[in-house]
């Protein structure tokens, strides 16, 4: 293990590196624009007017702060004679558009406007980022094009209709497995061809610098609110935090403000049908460092450096990479990266729905499944905060189809 830094919160360096990871691995055509996004973002970060405007939209439009809810029935259900953590849900599912994604979209759309861009593109997997992007584009009257893999279009059809209703153009992506990675490839190709006019609104803490840091910063409102809210509920910081990982934005948003505290941090990857089957999306648990989509990070790949297909029942986790800051937190041992299978996630989806009356997104259900695994073994005074990253209305068809296939 490497030397432990004094703080975990000062990354990335000025070239966008978190240790070995991150960077700006893009074609020259994009480089000038990426530097421009970085300049604009650095300005916005310290611009009180920008931050005030963003806070206003988050409060009055998105509906922040999102509640921190004590999940009492789940807590009681998982309690044993000797133990059982107190489980809180950070309710990002209650945001406008139904997931954490909108926090980032709100920030980036204000940036795109500031930069004078008059067209927005985005990639989407589960469709939540696409919906959030289409939403803020409707709000600010900016034409919007969403790239979405054909596999995902099929399994997240309610979100496809929502995006269209909001006025977005959906471009189906057929290459690869028709999932998030392929959508990101095509969004990058669009961007290269339309750099002058177009802003690429990346939906997670991946891509070339400054995106991983910028998206993390916009999502950190989750962790900042959680700090204040848990003090109100419990009078102290939590003992552990837990979140699911696709690219890693809801997780980074919850974790970042706690990185320098004595808080256990657990991130949950999707192991699909099981890591041993090869059909999974567990880049940290089963991948190796490599370069894709503008950054160095852990990737699912073969011995020739070809990227291999990810698999997860959850479209939002079905990605063969992970944000570079997570790769770094993994390597220095600051966070734990575990994995949950399709089946465990579907079971957790049902348990949460029946016990709490909260229908979680299949992505979030991965985090719930891990809570179900470990909560009983933790002491009674252990406080755990789970990021309920989104709601599961979009997943009705997927869950039904899964149950049908696995009867």
């Amino acid at each position, binding site marked *: 293990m490497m030397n432990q830094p004094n703080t975990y919160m000062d990354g990335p360096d000025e*070239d966008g590196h978190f240790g070995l990871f991150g*960077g*700006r*691995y*893009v*074609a*020259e*055509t*994009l*480089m*000038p*624009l990426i530097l421009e996004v970085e300049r604009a973002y650095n300005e916005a970060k310290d611009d009180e007017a920008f931050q005030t405007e963003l806070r206003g939209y988050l409060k009055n439009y998105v509906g922040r702060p999102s509640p921190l809810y004590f999940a009492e029935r789940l807590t009681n259900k998982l309690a044993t004679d000797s133990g059982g953590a107190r489980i809180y849900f950070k309710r990002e599912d209650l945001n406008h558009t139904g997931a954490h994604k909108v926090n980032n979209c709100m920030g980036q759309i204000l940036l795109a406007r500031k930069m004078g861009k008059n067209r927005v593109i985005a990639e989407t997997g589960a469709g939540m980022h696409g919906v959030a992007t289409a939403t803020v584009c409707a709000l600010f009257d900016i034409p919007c094009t969403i790239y979405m893999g054909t596999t995902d279009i099929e399994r997240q059809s309610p979100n496809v209709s929502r995006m269209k209703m909001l006025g977005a153009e959906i471009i189906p992506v057929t*290459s*690869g497995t028709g999932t998030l*990675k392929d959508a990101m*490839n095509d969004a*990058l*190709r669009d961007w*290269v*061809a*339309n*750099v*002058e006019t177009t802003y690429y609104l990346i939906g997670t803490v991946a891509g070339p610098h400054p995106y991983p840091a910028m998206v993390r910063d916009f999502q950190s409102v989750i962790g900042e609110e959680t700090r204040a809210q848990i003090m109100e509920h419990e009078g102290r910081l939590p003992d552990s935090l837990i979140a699911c990982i696709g690219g890693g934005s809801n997780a980074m948003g919850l974790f970042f403000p706690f990185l320098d505290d004595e808080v256990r941090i657990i991130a949950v990857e999707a192991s699909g049908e099981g890591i041993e089957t090869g059909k999974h999306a567990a880049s940290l648990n089963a991948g*190796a*460092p*490599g*370069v*894709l*989509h*503008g950054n*160095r990070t852990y*990737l699912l*790949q073969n*011995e*020739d*450096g*070809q*990227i*291999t297909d990810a698999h997860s029942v959850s479209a939002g986790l079905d990605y063969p990479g992970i944000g570079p800051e997570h790769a770094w937190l993994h390597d220095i041992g600051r966070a734990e990266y575990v994995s949950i299978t399709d089946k465990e996630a579907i079971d957790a989806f049902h348990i949460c729905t029946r016990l709490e009356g909260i229908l979680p997104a299949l992505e979030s259900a991965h985090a719930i499944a891990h809570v179900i695994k470990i909560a009983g073994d933790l002491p009674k005074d252990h406080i755990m905060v789970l990021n309920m990253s989104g709601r599961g209305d979009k997943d009705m068809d997927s869950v039904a189809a899964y149950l049908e296939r696995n009867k």
Partner: protein
Amino acid sequence: MTGTERIAKRFADLKAEGRAGLVTFITAGDPNFDVSSSILKQLPAAGADIIELGMPFSDPMADGPAIQASSQRALNKGASMIKTLDMVREFRKSDADTPIILMGYFNPIYIYGVEKFTAAASEAGVDGFIIVDLPPEEAEMRAPVENAGLSFIYLTAPTTDDARLPTVVEHASGFIYYVSVTGITGTKSAATQDIETALKRLRRHSDLPIAVGFGIKTPEQAAEIGKYAEAVVVGSAFVNKVTENLDKNGNPKDGCADAVLGLVRDIAGGLKSGSPATV
């Protein structure tokens, strides 16, 4: 002779002949190893002055549908970094003069090991590299490539402005590749006028020869752009010839190689009839 010297000699010869050179791109292993290798060997006789050999990658982000499909075909037929180098080694048995530039994306090289790959490529007879997703800011291949006497060829684009050009050309070697359109390979073409203006700007920053690529498909376009550049790069048009000559199972029909080479001859002919580069 080092790779960088081989490239310099080729450009010196072209200058002496008073014409612009033809840089041909094909994907290594498309439509399969044998046909690809056979095309490669015959490229110089058909009129290629410099060869760009594409290293297939699963996620070629800067490429259009033609080269994406060609990369995938090659991978489906078992292409790999090792086989790409085998192909170069084969080629060098019969040709000691035509520069070969490997073009592709960084990840397969990173996984092979940068030092190890550079050494293996040099030994196989490679002269330079174009790595699309390694801008000058990500410089980890520069030293190993320079130490091996090979060229790292940088791309410049219409978006690379005067403020940035010095950063890009500072470590350039061999030639400069001007990407004439903001876009992916195989789609639109640039106006000659814009290219002419862009090259004038580039020459204020570098004395290296310039190759212009992206969107050049016909002998006429090549001849036109050859008036202003030391070389023109044609890629998707050749790859399309492969695509047109596949049977319904994706296997090459008889004449697949000849179809590609025929177009090489046509474009080379166009260039030879054009006026010399005005340098």
